[in-house]
């Protein structure tokens, strides 16, 4: 079609131009910049920065923590969002209100949510009072390695609504007849969801997982607002490293770390995407 109708390119040009100027060129420019020495004369140093960054213990710790946080958050969001979406489907029209409520934390700025969260998890906060009431010891949630717990909970609470909305949209496309037939055949709820729903919405499920995982990999501001530039080393993320490098004028290290992260994500998702199911070909 593109060979036959050359005018199509003309219509695509503004969009392509924008894509080039705002995405492709900066992306390629960034690759070049990650191979310079970061001084104002920008001397080309090839892979020196990659060696330095990967050799830096701070980078490796940040990467490791980001990976751990994402591996905790993404599956939890995925599973909880799927269960919630299935439950909401049962409510049919009445589900709209609940869906909106679930989506609300996603729409509220993190800084506002954090204030509530810090009050809840403060040393004298509601959570610690509950723990004491149950006979336990107070926990320094906000100023120790235990910060990981409120951060993960906050992240899940904030982002689950968005995944539920995507799942709900996908679930609505599954024909009811399939469930009726399965029920007649004696399939229970678990079997219906795992044998019918999940295979049919696998591409969407993949998208939800990818988004949840990539976003969880970027957990930063929640920790930064509470723990500052140098929080407890259990919650020091890759973005802390990048942020601190930026403040120290090590822009080349920021870029290098960013491209290293991009390559890791790309490789992982390429591996996942290699599965035919997630591409929807089985449908």
């Amino acid at each position, binding site marked *: 079609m593109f060979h036959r109708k050359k005018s199509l390119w003309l219509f695509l040009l503004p969009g392509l131009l924008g894509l080039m100027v705002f995405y492709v060129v900066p992306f390629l420019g960034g690759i070049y910049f990650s191979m310079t020495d970061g001084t*104002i004369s920008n001397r080309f140093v090839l892979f020196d920065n990659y060696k330095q960054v990967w050799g830096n213990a*701070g980078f490796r710790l940040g990467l490791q923590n980001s990976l751990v946080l994402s591996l905790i958050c993404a599956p939890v969001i995925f599973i909880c969002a799927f269960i919630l979406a299935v439950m909401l489907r049962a409510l049919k029209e009445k589900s709209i209100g609940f869906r909106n409520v679930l989506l609300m934390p996603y729409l509220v700025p993190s800084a506002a949510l954090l204030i509530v969260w810090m009050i809840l998890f403060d*040393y004298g906060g509601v959570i610690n009072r509950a723990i004491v009431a149950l006979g336990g010891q107070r926990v*320094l949630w906000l100023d120790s390695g235990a910060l990981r717990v409120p951060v993960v909970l906050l992240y899940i609470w904030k982002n689950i609504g968005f995944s539920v909305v995507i799942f709900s949209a996908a679930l609505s496309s599954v024909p009811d007849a399939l469930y009726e037939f399965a029920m007649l055949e004696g399939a229970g709820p678990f079997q219906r969801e795992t044998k019918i729903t999940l295979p049919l919405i696998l591409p969407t499920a993949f998208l939800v997982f990818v988004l949840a995982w990539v976003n969880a990999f970027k957990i930063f501001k929640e920790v930064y607002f509470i723990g500052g*530039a*140098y929080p407890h*080393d259990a919650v020091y993320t890759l973005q802390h490293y990048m942020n601190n490098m930026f403040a*120290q004028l090590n822009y080349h290290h920021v870029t290098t770390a960013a491209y290293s992260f991009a390559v890791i994500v790309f490789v992982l998702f390429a591996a996942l995407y290699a599965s035919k199911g997630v591409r929807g070909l089985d449908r």
Partner: protein
Amino acid sequence: MRKPLTAVLLALLLACSFLPAALAQEAPASLDITVPEEVWMSAAAWHDGQMVFSGSGIWAWRPGEDSLRPVISPLDEGWDSDALSFNVLVLADGETLYCLDYTKGMLFPMTLQEKGFTLGEGVSLDLSALASTSRFGDEEHSYVEAPQQALIHQGQLYLITQTHGPMQMSWSAMKFDIKTGGAPQKLSLDVSVRQLAPYKDGSLLALTLAEKQETAPEFSLAVLSPDTDSLTPLGAAGIPYEYEGGGLAYDPAGDYIYLSGKDTIYRRDAQGETLPCAYITPTNMGSGFSGMLSLLPSGRLLLARPQQLALRDGDPAGLPTGRLTIYGSYIDDTHKKTIQAMNGIPVNFLDRQYFATAQQLGQALVSGEDDIDIFFLRSDAIDLTSLMKKGYCLDLTDSAVLMAHTDSLYPAMKETGMLEGQLLMVPVEAEGQMMGYYSKPMEASGLTPPENFFQLCDFLQQWNDNLTEQASEFIPLQADNFSKTLLNLALSLFNDHYAARGEPMQFNDPLLKDMLARALSVDTRNISPKVDWSNPQEASAAVNSIYNRPNVITSHFSLDLRSLHHTLNRKGRGTTMGFEDGSTYELGHEYALPLSYKEGEPAVTPLRLTLMAINPRSKNLDAAKKYAETLVQNLPDTTLAMINPSMNAELVNPNYQRDLKTWQEALQRMAKSVETAEGAEKTELQRQYDESLESFETYKDDLRVRVSAQAIQYYRDRVENSYIKTWGGMDTLFNDEAIAKLLNRLLQGQMPLEQFLKEAEGKMRLMQLERE
């Protein structure tokens, strides 16, 4: 024979034809003369380009002279103090000089002589419009405001006044007939006139300011008709609004209007186009809207304003190219001297710009947005190392002047500005502060000044236990929260010790744990302020009562050489603390309190450096380098001695005789006032005079030396155990909000000391990991 003679004549002719040009080149392109601070009240351009100044007496200047010449002082016999106040304004109308005594409301024609003047018959003016009052404590004082400008034109004295109302200042213009005097005729103008100057056809040129609420104020020009007292607008002045400046002059030969601003003189042509025509050195007087701009017979411009008399060519074509922009510093005497040596190149100080981080500054340097050529940074305020490493500072190693200056400094100071053998930043100033104490309250307490951190804790404990009632008028330590201050002090003293040795501190050190534990164990309940925050009024009164009590131990003993000189002299009564209710308290002399972190170790003094660097992307690299070189050559000796270890001799006061004379004259003026006063006023003036005389007798010998060798030696002893505070050291971590939160947790008992040390150590380890 004829041919050689003709050749010689031709050669002579040729030489003569070049002579005017050569002579013209000899005249300096620009000339700056310092006007002493005590001089400035007014200036008047008289005949042949002479200037007459009034201030503390009358001063004069003729073209060709390089300083102002004192004509008469109010203390001289020729000054009739019955007829004339100390503060007068001088005015000129062509060949006639006038003297306006605005305090007494008299205008006199004045004949100036080489050493003195004679006054003609004066006229009385009703200047009640200038009367004002001010409140000092419960007393209300009446005084007469000096007019902003006084101008005599065609037999009329024009005054522009600024009066301070309860909410705002208001400007007004009035005129008097100088023959009859009497009441003024107020000019009912619908705009605010700021300056007047003679204009064509007998009219006056007015600089007006429309103060619009929604936009920045805008200057305009108008013609004031003396007959109708009405303004005819000429259009926008075309100059930026600046608080300083305001000189206005008209050149009938070229039909040009000249206007002076803060650092530029502008020329407006008949077509209304305004261009910069001369640059002037900015002043640091915050002088307001003042200045006297006049044209010399040679066509050159003469600007007189506080601190400065500047002679310039008023030709836009002759302006020097380039402009230097400086970030991180402000105009002072060192910069002024430097600017004057820069052959008229304008220098702009980015005094309203602030870059909080190296990243922000780096962006500004590279983008060229603010055209920064030279920047000054404090070593502990910003990440100097990153800026140097990333190439944001020009390599100055090839400058012999700058290298010689840097080589002469303390090695640690020199190293701060160097990277891999390259000189990238030039140290120009050092400052330091330490703890101190006041002698009288310390003696009254009967306690010994502490020497280390543990002794300080004991000191506070003893005060809390035994002296709370006995010495309730004092606060033992300058602190809002004693425990918090002690914790912070423990951390910083411990860090200072390691920083001086060039080693990073460790939080998991048993001694640090002991220090923090001791800080936490000090019972400060009796000395801590008891404020009931539930009652705002009582809380406010309680807080005020706390701040009205003098501190025994302070944190602001300055290591500045001038301060050290005065502090170590320990002459006179020492420090007197004044309170709002007018009462005073004698604190005695301030002593340094060098605290070490533990017994047997010397106290460490952190120093801060100010360094100068040049932006490698500057468009005026040569001028910037020349400026930097000139600046280090003009650094005052009191500043240099703090960074140069070889300057150990006392620093004498070059103006000793002048300063002594000024002080003596002030005393004589006081004595005269005492003589003429009566009753209670005389008693009060006599008391003030006696105090001043005692002060003079005590300190007059100190005037000769600005910094004693003893003060320099004291400073050197402190520097022996010091380190340069830099950004990125432990202070960065201490200033981090997260550490402050940890400290609060520790203080509130929410976190055991062991956990605090573990969490803090973790943060420090993260910093180190990033920097590996």
